[in-house]
């Protein structure tokens, strides 16, 4: 070694491995407008598809006349259900075990439903032609309220299911009922609650909203009739699943289908499912022999492809006089819309909603979820959360606040005395989960200290006094949340999608000169996989992250995986990546031993090299080993340096966090100002702090939107009232609050690198924090609960109903 030899610290820094705030490599192209999204794909002879959609929420389709549309020059085809029926593609299976119309088959069940698919030589002609398709409808009674949908006299929505008493998830008790899903102990819970000193009850509604990714859904399908290969480019969060489903539906052998997810402009759950547009584009390409593009516009995205939430959660929570929680009971009426197209692991029709005991040691609990059909768009996807976890977190964090009111207790203290203690992990929850690790008290105390909780409460008390004395018209709300997420689906023994186990994968190839390419079964939609997965490999193999290319989304090249959603990429594919890197390193150790003429066991790993124990001057760097792997005959070893790993996680991971929002509320106008937002996340081992911070900012902004105004609203006859960005709240830089981020680090004991996943925590945690701040501002005036979104008029209504307008 000499002066030119980099120090160990320099070598570590050079890797930009785990823990480094490495800049996102993707942003070079994204910030220059050089991304390659589905709509950027242009193939020779490409045709364009556009939908005729239903203006009605419930109607019989009496006839469809396509003559005038077909007569328009440039129109190649107009597909209807009648055209798809011979192929048995007029309906398609959903991820939730239901089936969904691809094109209206006799009736329509929601406004915006796909009725006919026009294919033309350009998208302007296609749009013109949709207006020329003459559809005769007979309006039917509309049901948009899930409670009314279950009344005996409610109209039958799904005539295709009439008389079928058994659904995909057990018995159906009504013609608009989908399933009843239960967890926990019903009787024991009811007994515990009835015997308790204090009981709080509340109906907590998590309204219907929408992931609204900046890029809408779309596809380009290209059937090559000469070689029989179908290529499908699309906005797919799970490209491999799409390939398998496409093969099963079409009968085309899986090796003849290539699915490619190019750059994706945000997904947030909206791009997990399979949509009629994909099926129609594929069929149209098979029929015409030409590539067919279909791109949704914003109104179609908001009104037809998957929404999120719409959960009516009736809760009962009980406690001792001192505030020890004794039981939790929850019944959910879940509005799934016209088809059950939730994107959950198949055995979990209510997702992981039964994480709803949250961060608390609750001895007994019960959850029952009734899925219901209504005349609204299908969906119910996990909008930047693990499956139904934001619903669960919102529910428990509201119930805690309501219980605090019932007890006359400070809500921070009530949380503290009920937290699962550090020494209780791994913790078995009353609803059947095994929490892997946590240290809630430490996080909570750190958060309260950071925001100056005591001082805030004193300020609030003064404010209330000032308000009552007429010195101010603004109230101060302190919104508390401690959430526990469940992510990383999941163990194949109980997690699958349509029978496909939810493992994930990574394949690493080291090139002779010491750079590498890695491919994964996941697909980034903005999460920064090309940045962070390279960091895991850098730490595991000792090759600099800057020398590692990450590739995802092409099913012809990437190993099979279940995709990216539910914060599963790091817990599952990240684990596969680490283990794959370790396989590489194991072989590298054998090569190094041969080169250094020592036994394998005489070597130790040091950042980027194997060093002979006790002889630090004798080493081989990974770069040298890579070259030797390809160019030197090593007895007993195959040439090359590559590996593939498939990882089936033993358990989920349980990230958690403490979020606090401080808001000023104008009682007269219903306006608000977020004065402070503090987010402490514990996502286990932190791979890239800067990427984590970015994820927290993005997720908290979505949470802010959801809590304070974002909704998909329908009128009583099923018209979408919020189908454009004028009415659907998507915050700009102007509305977006300032965030303070913080962390504790409690590694997952079962994950190879201890990482838990973070992308969705900020959405899960921020919604109750914002909502609780609004509620807290009015607590002193008697408010218990008021439904989101807390837009101006709804906050104004709270104040009016409490008599605060004089």
């Amino acid at each position, binding site marked *: 070694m000499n002066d030119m030899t980099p120090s160990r610290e320099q070598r570590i820094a050079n890797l930009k491995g785990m823990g480094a705030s490495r800049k996102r490599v993707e942003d070079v192209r994204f910030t220059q407008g050089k991304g390659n999204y589905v709509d950027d794909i242009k193939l020779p002879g490409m045709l364009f598809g556009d939908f005729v959609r239903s203006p009605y929420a419930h109607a019989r389709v009496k006839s469809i006349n396509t003559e005038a549309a077909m007569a328009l020059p440039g129109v190649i085809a107009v597909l209807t259900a009648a055209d798809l029926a011979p192929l048995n593609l007029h309906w398609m299976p959903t991820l939730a075990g239901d089936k969904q119309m691809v094109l209206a088959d006799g009736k329509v069940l929601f406004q915006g439903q796909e009725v006919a698919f026009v294919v033309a030589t350009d*998208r*302007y002609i296609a*749009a*013109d032609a949709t*207006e020329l398709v003459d559809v005769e409808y007979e309006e039917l009674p509309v049901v948009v309220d899930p409670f009314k949908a279950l009344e005996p006299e409610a109209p039958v929505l799904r005539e295709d299911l009439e008389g079928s008493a058994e659904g995909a998830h057990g018995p159906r008790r009504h013609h608009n009922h989908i399933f009843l899903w239960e967890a926990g102990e019903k009787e024991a819970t009811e007994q515990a609650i009835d015997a308790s000193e204090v009981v709080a009850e509340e109906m907590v509604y998590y309204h219907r909203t929408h992931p609204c990714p900046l890029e809408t859904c779309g596809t380009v399908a290209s059937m090559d009739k000469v070689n029989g290969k179908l290529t499908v480019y699309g906005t797919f969060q799970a490209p491999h699943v799409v390939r398998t489903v496409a093969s099963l539906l079409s009968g085309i052998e899986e090796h003849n289908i290539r699915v490619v997810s190019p750059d994706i402009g945000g997904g947030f759950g909206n791009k997990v499912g399979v949509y009629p547009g994909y099926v129609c584009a594929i069929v149209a390409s098979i029929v015409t022999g030409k590539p067919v593009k279909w791109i949704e*516009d*914003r*109104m179609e995205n908001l009104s037809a492809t998957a929404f999120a939430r719409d959960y009516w959660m009736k809760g009962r929570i009980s406690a001792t006089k001192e505030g020890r929680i004794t039981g939790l009971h929850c019944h959910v009426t879940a509005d799934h819309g016209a088809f059950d197209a939730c994107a959950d692991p198949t055995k979990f029709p209510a997702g992981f909603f039964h994480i709803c005991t949250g961060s608390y040691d609750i001895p007994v609990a019960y959850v029952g979820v009734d899925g219901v059909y209504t005349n609204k768009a299908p969906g119910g996807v996990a909008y930047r959360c693990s499956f139904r976890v934001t619903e669960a977190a919102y529910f428990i964090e509201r119930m805690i606040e309501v219980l605090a009111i019932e007890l006359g207790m400070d809500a921070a203290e009530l949380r503290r005395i009920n937290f699962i203690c550090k020494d209780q992990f791994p913790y078995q929850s009353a609803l059947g989960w095994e929490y892997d690790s946590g240290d809630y008290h430490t996080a909570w105390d750190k958060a309260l200290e950071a925001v100056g909780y005591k001082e805030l409460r004193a300020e609030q008390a003064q404010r209330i006094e000032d308000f009552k004395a007429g010195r101010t018209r603004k109230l101060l709300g302190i919104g508390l949340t401690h959430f526990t997420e469940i992510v990383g689906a999941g163990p194949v023994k109980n997690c699958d999608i349509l029978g496909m186990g939810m493992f994930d994968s990574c394949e690493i190839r080291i090139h002779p000169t010491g750079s590498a390419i890695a491919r994964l079964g996941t697909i980034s939609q903005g999460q920064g996989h090309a940045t962070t997965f390279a960091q895991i490999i850098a730490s595991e193999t000792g090759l600099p992250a800057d020398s590692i290319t990450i590739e995802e989304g092409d099913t012809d090249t990437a190993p099979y995986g279940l995709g990216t959603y539910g914060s599963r990429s790091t817990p599952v594919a990240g684990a596969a990546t680490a283990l794959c890197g370790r396989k590489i390193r194991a072989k590298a150790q054998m090569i190094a031993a041969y080169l250094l003429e020592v036994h394998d066991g005489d070597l130790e790993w040091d950042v980027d090299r194997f060093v002979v124990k006790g002889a630090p001057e004798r080493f081989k760097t990974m770069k040298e080993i890579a070259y030797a792997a390809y160019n030197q005959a090593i007895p007993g070893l195959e040439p090359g340096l590559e590996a593939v790993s498939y990882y089936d996680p033993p358990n989920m991971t349980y990230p958690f966090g403490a979020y606090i929002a401080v808001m000023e509320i104008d009682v*007269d*106008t*219903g*306006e608000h100002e977020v004065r402070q937002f503090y987010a402490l996340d514990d996502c286990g081992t932190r791979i890239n702090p800067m990427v984590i911070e970015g994820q927290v900012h993005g997720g908290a902004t979505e949470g802010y939107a959801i809590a304070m*105004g974002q909704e998909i*609203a329908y009128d009583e006859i099923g018209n979408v*009232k*919020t189908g454009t*960005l*004028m*009415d659907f*709240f998507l*915050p*700009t830089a*102007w*509305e977006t609050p300032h965030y303070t981020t913080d962390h504790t680090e409690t590694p997952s004991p079962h994950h190879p690198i201890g990482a838990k996943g973070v992308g969705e925590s900020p959405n899960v945690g921020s919604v109750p924090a914002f909502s609780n701040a609004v509620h807290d501002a009015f607590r002193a005036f008697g408010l218990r609960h008021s439904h989101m979104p807390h*837009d*101006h*008029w709804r906050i*104004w*209504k709270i104040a*009016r109903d409490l008599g605060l*307008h004089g």
Partner: protein
Amino acid sequence: MIPSSFEYHRPSDLAAAIGLLAEHGDEARVIAGGHSLIPLMKMRMAGATHLVDLQGLGDLKRITVSADGISIGAMVTQAELIAHEGLAAAVPLLREAALQIADPQVRNLGTVGGNVANGDPGNDMPGLMQCLGATFTLEGPDGSRDVAAREFYHGAYVTARADDEILTHIRFAPPAGGYAYEKQKRKIGDYATAAAAVLLTRNGGTVASASVAMTNLSDVPVWSQAAGEALAGSDCGDEAVRSAVTAMLADIDPQQDNRGPVEFKRHVAGVMLARAISRAWSRA
């Protein structure tokens, strides 16, 4: 979100533009910044087979400020209006209000003329122009005529402008006294839930004159003469403000929409007006 096909015209002088409107009748639409018309065309809620773009009419991009009066060409963008120092000095109300319209990208294209001529009750400029007592100049095949802003609006998207006329200029006398524009909106880019424009002059401790106009609280902008009269001669105290609000509430007719129910809008209208009066008085 794809419009049906249309012919695009870009005349280089006013006579040619008016000629095109005459030639194509109700199949033609004038386009200025396009921020109202183009979304409607994309949603196929407005059909126009001939678009007559006024970007080529340089005369309509002028702002003149003098002691006798102010003239703003119809093609002046909101951004140009905001940037004009002479105008800001003479009519600070306009800059204060224009900064509350949409976002910088929209303001870079959206024009004052388009904003007042379209007749959209959500637009901010119509109420402001009523508050200022402005006059709109319309040019048509039969020559030029002036219409008072307070007489211009007949209903949502229905104005005194004939199909073959073009609104070319806005003129008004520089206002004296205090001013304020108070607007509540859900987010950047939204129309007002309620907005109030107030101009006040002071004579010692009393209000010498007052002009009050409200935005997006009826199918037309509302210049509330009664509200102004309630303030004139008063000390602008709580009681006077209450009378002005009561008078204004008798003149507006808001409808329920996603911004909220009627009762909420009326309440907010009162709050906006009270705040605008208070701020204008402090500046008078």
